[in-house]
C-alpha cells in the first residue's frame, strides 16, 4: 500500500522538480540580482543550472537543489522521531513516516527555512502520529497537521525568500493571491493560462501546482481503490457548485469572481483533494459521510478564499477543519442509521 502511494506521488515529485526549478530560474532571468550565495543557489549553480538556456535539465537541477534538501531534512526529522517513538513503545519502525515526509515536503514552498521544516515535521510526527499510537490510528493527516502548524506559526513562510515574493508585482504565495490582486489580467501578465496552470507552471508550494501530475496519481489510487471516489467526486463537484454560487451572488472582484476552473487549477486544491483529504484514516468512513465531507471541504475552500485574503490558498485550513469534523459527520450518519434500525418491528 505504501509503495503504491509513493508510486502515485512520483508524477507529482517530477512536476515539483521541474516547476520549482522553472520558477527559480525564471525569477533569476527577470532579476539576476536575486542570485544570492545561499545554499540552494549554490547547489543549483554547482549542478550547472543555467537560467539563460532554461532547458529541462536546468529546471531539474534547480528544482533538485530546492526540493531534495527539504525532503532530506524532513526524512531525517521524521525518522528521528519515529525511532524515538517506536523505541519508547517497544514497537518496530513503521515506514509510513516516509510518506509523511514526502507529502510535507510537497506542501512546502521551495525556499522553506530549515527551522520551518524541522518544526513542522516534528509536530507532524509527534502530534499527528505518535500520540495517537502510530500509523493508521490518527484522525488527521500528519503531513497536513505539520504544514498547518508551520503556516500558523510562521505566517510568512511562503514569502520568506525573495524568490517567492516581490516578483512580477505581487507578494502573495501563489497564483491565487495574484488573482486576488488583479484578476485574469494579472494572471496573463504572469504568463499563466489554462494550459500552464494545468501542467503546473505556476508559482506555489513545490508539489501542488501541477493538476496533470495530481490527476495521474489520482488515477492510480482510484484504480487500486486506495482512495474513495465518492470523496474525490464530492470535492470537485462541490468546488464547481460553490464557486459558481459566489460568481453569481458575490462581489465582482477578488476570489468571489474567480471562475470554478481557476479554483481547481490554481493553488493546491487538486493536490490536497487527492493526497491529503482522501487519506482513508483521516476522512469520514461511511459513504454518506464521504459525500458530506467532500462538499464541506469544497465549501470551506471557496469560502476561505473569498473571505480571508491572508490565506489565499485556503486548502490547508479547509482540509484541517474538515478532517476534524469527519468523526462528527460519521457520528451523524450512524445516528441516522441506528434510528432506522430502531424503527424496524422485528
Amino acid at each position, binding site marked *: 500500500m505504501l509503495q503504491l502511494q509513493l508510486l502515485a506521488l512520483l508524477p507529482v515529485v517530477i512536476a515539483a522538480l521541474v516547476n520549482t526549478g522553472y520558477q527559480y530560474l525564471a525569477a533569476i532571468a527577470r532579476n539576476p540580482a536575486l542570485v544570492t550565495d545561499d545554499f540552494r543557489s549554490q547547489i543549483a549553480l554547482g549542478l550547472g543550472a543555467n537560467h539563460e538556456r532554461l532547458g529541462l535539465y536546468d529546471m531539474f537541477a534547480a528544482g533538485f537543489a530546492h526540493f531534495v534538501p527539504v525532503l532530506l531534512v524532513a526524512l531525517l526529522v521524521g525518522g528521528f522521531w519515529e525511532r524515538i517513538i517506536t523505541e519508547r513503545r517497544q514497537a518496530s519502525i513503521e515506514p509510513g513516516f516516509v510518506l509523511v515526509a514526502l507529502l510535507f515536503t510537497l506542501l512546502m514552498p521551495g525556499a522553506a527555512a530549515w527551522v520551518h521544516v524541522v518544526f513542522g515535521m516534528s509536530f507532524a510526527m509527534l502530534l499527528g502520529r505518535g500520540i495517537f499510537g502510530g500509523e493508521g490510528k490518527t484522525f488527521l493527516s500528519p503531513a497536513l497537521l505539520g504544514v498547518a502548524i508551520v503556516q500558523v506559526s510562521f505566517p510568512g513562510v511562503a514569502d520568506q525568500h525573495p524568490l517567492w515574493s516581490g516578483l512580477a508585482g505581487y507578494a502573495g504565495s501563489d497564483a491565487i493571491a495574484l488573482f486576488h490582486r488583479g484578476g485574469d489580467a494579472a494572471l496573463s501578465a504572469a504568463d499563466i493560462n489554462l494550459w500552464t496552470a494545468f501542467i503546473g507552471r505556476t508559482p506555489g508550494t513545490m508539489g501542488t501546482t501541477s493538476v496533470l501530475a495530481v490527476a495521474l496519481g489520482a488515477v492510480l489510487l482510484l484504480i487500486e481503490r486506495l482512495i474513495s471516489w465518492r470523496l474525490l467526486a464530492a470535492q470537485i463537484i462541490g468546488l464547481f457548485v460553490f464557486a459558481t454560487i459566489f460568481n453569481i451572488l458575490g462581489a465582482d472582484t477578488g476570489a468571489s469572481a474567480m471562475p470554478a476552473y481557476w479554483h481547481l487549477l490554481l493553488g493546491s486544491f487538486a493536490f490536497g483533494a487527492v493526497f491529503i483529504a482522501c487519506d482513508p484514516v483521516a476522512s469520514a468512513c461511511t459513504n454518506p459521510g464521504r459525500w458530506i465531507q467532500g462538499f464541506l471541504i469544497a465549501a470551506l475552500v471557496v469560502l476561505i478564499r473569498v473571505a480571508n485574503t491572508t490565506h489565499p490558498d485556503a486548502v490547508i485550513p479547509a482540509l484541517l477543519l474538515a478532517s476534524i469534523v469527519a468523526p462528527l459527520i460519521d457520528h451523524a450518519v450512524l445516528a441516522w442509521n441506528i434510528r432506522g434500525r*430502531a424503527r424496524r418491528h*422485528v
Partner: protein
Amino acid sequence: MLSGLETKYVTRAALLGSDYRGVNFEMLCEVGDEVKVGAAVMRDVRRPQIKFTAPLSGRVASIERGKRRKLISLQIDVDDSMAVASQQPPAGNDGVSLRNFMLESGAWSMLRTRPFGNIPDPDAEPAAVFVTALDAEPLAPEPRSIIETYQQEFNSAVNVLADLSDAPLYVCHAPNHVLGFENSSKIRSVSFAGGYAAGLPGVHINALCPIGFGGGEVWHIGYQDVISLGHLLLHGEPWLQRVISLGGNAVRNPRDLAVYPGSKISELLVNEISEVAPRTLMGSTIYGRESAPGSAFLSARQRQITVFDSTTGEAAGTKASSPGALIPNETLESLILPGIYPVPLMRALQLGDAERARELGALELVEEDVMPLSRACVSSSDYAMLLRDVLDQLESVR
C-alpha cells in the same frame, strides 16, 4: 437419485458440536452402540424436546470433547446396512403436530434463528421463515438441478414449514429458477441476484424482514435441509445425501459430489488433491473458513470444499502491512449487508463493545457474513470470532 453425480462414500461420519451453537448435549447413546439412521443420539439439555439423530447407521466410534467438556464431534463408523429408524408421519397439519414431528425426527435442528444463529425454541414464533433456494458463491453446486430432482420432497417440506407458524415464508431463489409456488398469503417466492452475497440468508432477511431492536427473530433453512425434511415427510427416513462441490486449483478433478452428511473430509479428498500441503477452505473462497484441526468433518450446512495449493491467496497476500490498525476503505462497504456501515462496526467488534455493535447491526449478522471483512482488512483481525463474542454477550443479557 441425482443423475450424473458421482457418489463418494466414506467409512466415518460425524455430528459436530460446532454446528449447534449454544446447545449442551445430553448423550442418548454410548461409544460402541449400534445406531440406526434417524435414531436420536443426543438431545439438548436445556430444551430436551430438541433431538439430534444419527445421519447414518453404524457404530458410535467416539465422542470427542474439548475444553469444559464441550462436544466437538460424535463420530460414527458407517456400516452398509443403512438400517432405518422410521419416523411416524405428522399427526395433522396443525402447527403443533408438525413441530412435534420435526422435533422427534431431528429435523428441527436444521432450522436457524437470526439473530444469533441458534436452533429456535420449540415453542417460539418467528416473524418470518426463509428458505434459501439459491447459492451464489463461487464454484458452489447449482441448487436448481438438485431441487428439481427432489421437487416433490422440496415442495412438501416448504408447505410444512409454512404451516409451522402464522408468519410468512419466503422462498428465495435465483432469477432464472422458477419454483412454481403460487404467491399466497403464506408462501412468497422472491428472486435474488447480484454478486456472491445474493445467496446469503443474511441478505434475504435484510431485504425482506430486517432485524431491528424489537427482540423478535426470523428462521431460515437451506435448500438441502428442506429436501431432507421432505424426505422424512414422504418416506419416513432422512435423506442420506448431501451435494457438495469440490473446487480450487489443487483439486485434480473439480466437480460436484454426492456424499453422506457429516462425511470425514480426509476420506473425501483421497486421490483428489495434487498438492502435499494444500490450504483447505470449508466453503467458498468468499465466505468459507480456513479448516481448523478440529473441522475434520463436513459441517451441517457446508456445500463446498475449496482446496488451494499453498502459494495461492492470502498466504502470499496483503496481510503483511501494519497489523493492528484498521485502514478504512470504500471496498469494505460492498462486502457486508446493505445498510450496515462496516468500518464503525469493525471498530466496535475490535473493542468488544457489544452495545455499540448491536446498534450498528450486529444482530443481523452471523460469522459467515463478516468473513469477507476479515479477508479484506489489513489489521488481520478475525471478525467472525469477534462477532461471535459480541453475539454471546448480547444473547446473555437478552
